[in-house]
């Protein structure tokens, strides 16, 4: 299993948090996804072996929780909240803006043509007072109307260009 040394260290450490190894399934899956970008078939088998579980036990969990991806997605992950409070103040238009800016469609496995971005609708992100709310990678952005969505998109594009 190809992971960074510190990921392996953190995996071994987190297993010690629980009296039953199986409890470490979610933490291990998070660590693997943070490192590799997604959960591969190999990763599922590896996690199962590591925790002395059957592979089906891990597969059941990976497919139950939407945060885990089975395939690589865009380099940047834009999650737009679609639940009522955000929708009431324009969440759907915000998502549309991102879709237009990156020429893509919202979907859990959709990747923009340049591979940079995955735009996805998610359920309530628990910041309804500052709706519409968008989670880009691990940063929460509040009051994201169309104008701010455009700003954030420009920022993403600038960061992508700077990397090249």
């Amino acid at each position, binding site marked *: 299993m190809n992971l960074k040394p510190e990921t392996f260290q953190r995996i071994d450490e987190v297993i010690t948090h629980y009296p039953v190894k199986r409890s470490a399934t*979610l933490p291990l899956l998070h660590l693997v996804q943070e490192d590799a970008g997604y959960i591969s078939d190999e990763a599922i088998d590896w996690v199962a072996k590591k925790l002395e579980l059957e592979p089906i*036990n891990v597969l059941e969990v990976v497919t139950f929780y939407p945060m885990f991806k089975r395939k690589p997605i865009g380099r940047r992950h834009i999650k737009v909240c679609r639940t*009522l409070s955000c929708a009431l103040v324009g969440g759907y*238009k915000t998502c549309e803006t991102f879709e237009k800016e990156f020429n893509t469609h919202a979907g859990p496995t959709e990747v923009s043509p340049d591979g940079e971005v995955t735009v996805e609708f*998610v359920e309530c992100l*628990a910041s309804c007072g500052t709706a519409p709310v968008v989670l880009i990678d691990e940063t*929460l952005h509040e009051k994201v109307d169309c104008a701010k969505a455009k700003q954030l998109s420009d920022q993403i594009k600038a960061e992508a260009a700077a990397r090249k």
Partner: protein
Amino acid sequence: MSAPAQNRIIFKHIDEPDYTNDLACYLKHGGYEVMKRSFQRQPQELIDEVKKSGLRGRGGAGFPCGVKWGLVDRKSGKPIYLIVNADESEPGTFKDRYIMYQDPHQLIEGTIISCFANNVKQAYIYIRGEMAEGARILEKAIAEARAANFVGPNILGSNYSCEIFVHRGAGAYICGEETGLIESLEGKRANPRIKPPYFPAVLGLYQCPTIVNNVETLCHVKYIAEHGGEAFTKIGTPNNTGTRIFCVSGHVQRPGYYEFPAGTITMGQLLYDVCGGPLPGRTFKAVIPGGSSAKVMRFGERYKGKRKVGADMVDYDWGVEDVPMDFDSLAMVGTMGGSGGVIVMDDSVNMVEALANINAFYSHESCGQCTPCREGSLWMKKISTRMVHGDARPGDAALLKSVADQIPGRTICAFGEACSWPTQSFYLKFKDEFETYHETKKAPKPADATVLV
């Protein structure tokens, strides 16, 4: 009469300039002193104070915390666990986030005090997966606390040890249900357990007695440990003691969080005085008072009956604006206080579309274990979505309601009620709009109309 002042107890330092979430700042404000003093007391004493306080859970069910602690099986010989339910996912709710991000040590202190009171040596904070930054903040705070010997083995030489670990979820609302949370913590699909026999107080995490408490609830415990249960009863109203954090969102001028003593503020005061009333040119149409699972209230409807005030039975005749914001009053008028998430809709909103948005949420979050919720939630979503985006038929609204009626009371967990109450209440309160939707939707919509689903 205009609204009373807020009483920022839990949210005392939220968004306060110069207040940071590190230990040094917390200590500067007297942090962990209550914990130290609590260690000098008998654990049963602390439990009694919480019982006396009448503190009701702030996660949504409003179950008395003292009673919950009292149900724990302390004779089994198995270790007792405490789980902090930080899976804040009820639509419309956004209070625990602020506590964890900006004042994490308040949560840690409240947790340790609660663990000490209940002879718990191991606690887990189950935080929703989307709050990755929150998990990091909590882990850093716990590390600081551990370094200062406030968490971990032999806390401050007291011989009492308690370890806290943060455990991240991964995008499932059903992990907020206490037995679903326990299953998820055990590393499985978050399928809630049947009760009986799997009451967490007896057969919880790893089949050991377990307490599951909401983030805000544990912060109130810290207050009770400091000031006593009786002092807590002086805040709020009888049977609805302490402060509540109301999270107002949707079509108001000033959405946001507001902490008031329970029952001392009415819906009207909250929405008009505190939140500035509706947006320019708009009027209030509907409000969901306690997270999207709570039944909707329609502005203009009236609630009449008799209620107990002190020792007397007194008549009440309320409009939506007059309902006091507390568990019992809201329950009396046919809805619930729930998680305190107040979602406001104005006259620009089409209720059929709003319901379609909510139905899509529940069908996505259903764990799928039991038949009525699994099939019913998706069926309601399919009908709602078809009504909005496809072909709406005259009988669809009644069908929606009839499907919803087949779910509550028949499921393994309260998600059955949560997914069906919106449909039932939206239809009953806005029957005119639902029954005519197949006609009214034919009218062209303005180009800038808000899309809800």
